[in-house]
């Protein structure tokens, strides 16, 4: 018995010394060119596939991937953040991407064996030791846009990122215009209208996106590509666009309830109009006007505020308190009313008289 124990102890000690030598003296070759030892590649890949299958959300978590603009937004982000490694459909991967180990799969191959829920998990979480990054924001909703795009890729109907027609305007405008349109008035309902926002508010929002106080993978990616001076010019340019007309998705059936809540508030919900208009008692460029903003964007943002997942500028603590008592029905009604209002600042339809 004693000899068995001594033999085992000697084996453990030898193994530990060998391991320490491999790590400490650099004996293991980490060369991507040299590749993995036989069997290691299979081991890692199988671990990855089984891990994704175990952790992906259930099929019920998949939202409506055919929502207008969703796949287009995903396409725009894919072009700036993902295409370098995976290539857009029809393009070839760069020689550099092909030299990675593991080699990133071509976009159409990458999605072959996965359902939307698996793709969502991979895009949101990333994959360790493979070069695949996680979604650059904590909020859970945005990665679905990429999944919507990848599903269109699978169907062979991948949207092309729209090209900006504008030639004038500040540096970086054509980049912003891919999603926000050069008019600042995107026709994708989840992308906010910028033509109705004051320059100060947009500058503060871009700064918050840039340093991570406000959470969005799309906008972290976008705001960090441009220098702070350019952000101010772009905010000023969009603020100067002529604003008019209602936003997308204003449901008239809900507008009256939204108007009542926004104008009068309740014992738990502050009156929205006091800061966000229309007819606000005093101008304050720190608060975004909401009349004419797209309903889908407003719903998402109010959800984030209520859930404590929305940051922003120095006044973000005010809105975090203001939104905490909102119900889903309140949020739907407020978004419907504000989206249905003309952007000029008139109250328009759904106005209620204050007692």
């Amino acid at each position, binding site marked *: 018995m004693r000899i068995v124990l001594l033999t085992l102890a000697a084996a453990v000690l030898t193994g530990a010394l060998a391991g320490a030598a491999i790590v400490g003296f650099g004996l293991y070759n980490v060369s991507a060119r040299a590749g993995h030892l036989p069997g290691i590649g299979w081991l890692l890949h199988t671990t990855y596939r089984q891990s994704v299958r175990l952790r992906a959300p259930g099929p019920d978590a998949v939202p409506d991937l055919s929502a207008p603009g969703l796949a287009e937004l995903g396409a725009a982000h894919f072009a700036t953040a993902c295409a370098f490694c995976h290539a857009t459909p029809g393009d070839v991967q760069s020689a550099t991407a092909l030299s990675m180990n593991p080699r990133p799969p071509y976009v159409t191959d990458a999605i072959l064996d996965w359902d939307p829920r698996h793709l969502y998990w991979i895009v949101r979480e990333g994959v360790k030791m493979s070069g695949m990054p996680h979604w650059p924001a904590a909020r859970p909703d945005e990665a679905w846009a990429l999944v919507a795009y990848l599903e269109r890729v699978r169907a062979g109907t991948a949207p092309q990122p729209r090209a900006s027609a504008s030639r004038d305007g500040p540096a970086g405008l054509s980049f912003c215009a891919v999603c926000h349109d050069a008019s600042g008035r995107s026709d994708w309902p989840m992308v906010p209208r910028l033509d109705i926002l004051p320059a100060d508010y947009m500058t503060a929002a871009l700064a918050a996106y840039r340093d991570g106080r406000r959470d969005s993978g799309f906008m972290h990616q976008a705001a960090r590509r441009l220098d702070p001076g350019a952000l101010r010019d772009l905010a000023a340019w969009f603020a100067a666009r002529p604003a008019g007309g209602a936003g997308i998705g204003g449901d008239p059936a809900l507008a009256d309830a939204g108007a009542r809540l926004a104008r009068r508030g*309740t014992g738990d919900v502050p009156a929205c109009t006091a800061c966000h208009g229309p007819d606000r008692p005093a101008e304050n460029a720190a608060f975004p006007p909401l009349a004419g903003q797209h309903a889908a964007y407003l719903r998402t943002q109010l959800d984030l505020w209520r859930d404590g997942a929305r940051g922003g500028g120095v006044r973000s603590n005010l809105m975090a308190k203001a939104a905490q008592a909102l119900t889903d029905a309140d949020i739907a009604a407020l978004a419907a009313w504000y989206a249905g209002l003309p952007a000029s600042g008139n109250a328009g339809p759904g106005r209620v008289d204050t007692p």
Partner: protein
Amino acid sequence: MHGGAERDVMAVMPVACMPQTNRQTAAACRRAAGCLAMLALLGACEGRQAVLNPAGQDAAVIARLFLGMLTGAVILWLLVAGLFLYVTVFRVSHMPRRWAESLIVGGGVLFPTFVLAGLLSYSLPLMSSQRTGGDGLVVHVRGEQWWWRVTYETPQGNRAVSANEVRLPAGRRTEFRLTADKVIHSFWIPALGGKTDMIPGRETVMTLEPAETGLFRGQCAEFCGASHALMAFEVETMAPDLFDEWLRHAASDAVPPATEAARRGAGIFAAEGCGACHTVRGTPALGRVGPDLTHVGSRHSIGAALLPVTAADLALWVGRTGHLKPDVEMPQYDHLLPDALLDLGRYLEGLK
């Protein structure tokens, strides 16, 4: 102060302290000093928030009941202690069985039955005064976290909304209709009467009749969360004609800002969206989340009896709500510069 109390204890408790070691002695003396210090707190009962210093009919009844009970309890204690001494010190011997049995039946059954029945028949009718109707004025008080929403309603149907302060006409009986927003609170003005729970979704009713004019203090008497201890309010009892005059003023719209600083403050109030949560009648501010500020400058306190009503204290409150009142609903406006906060304070102070 503390040292003095300890010396007093040493003087009165030499026997108890002597047989122990020094360390035990010190600990025992500290404990005794603590008890004496708590007794000293009874001195605070002369103040504006005191059960034993009644300033209203209902509080007087309660004080009388308390003193009656206390007297009875002292007499009973003396009787029992005397009996104990008698059988253990003065007459240590066997007691005849008949004596012992009649002592148990008489002293253990009959005597307490009569005493308790007497006390019950004395005390039960006293509660009815809490149930008697008011003379007309109804004050609705809603417990919020952590402040008081107060609405006065006259028999003519006129309403005036206020907060964190109750004013009452002396010599008249006022009805209180109490409820609560999210959790149970308890409404208590010790100098004027008993406490009544405030329950969400339900209205409890009590009446109070202050006997004299003066300034008193009320306090939430049911633990209601992080800032329960900071949920108090001021109570002013006034001569009836002065009260009627005050109520007319309380129902009126706010006065416009009078000074340049106050006008700047009014601008900040509007631009920062304060009206989303607060009402200032006569202005676009119509919010209902927080206290009505129409006449906040004429109140005795802000923040539910937390700070006096000066421009500097108002500025301090707006800029530091979370520091002054843990978990408070009102967000902290620490992004405003000190000058702006002071202007805001001047505007609010001027809302007389």
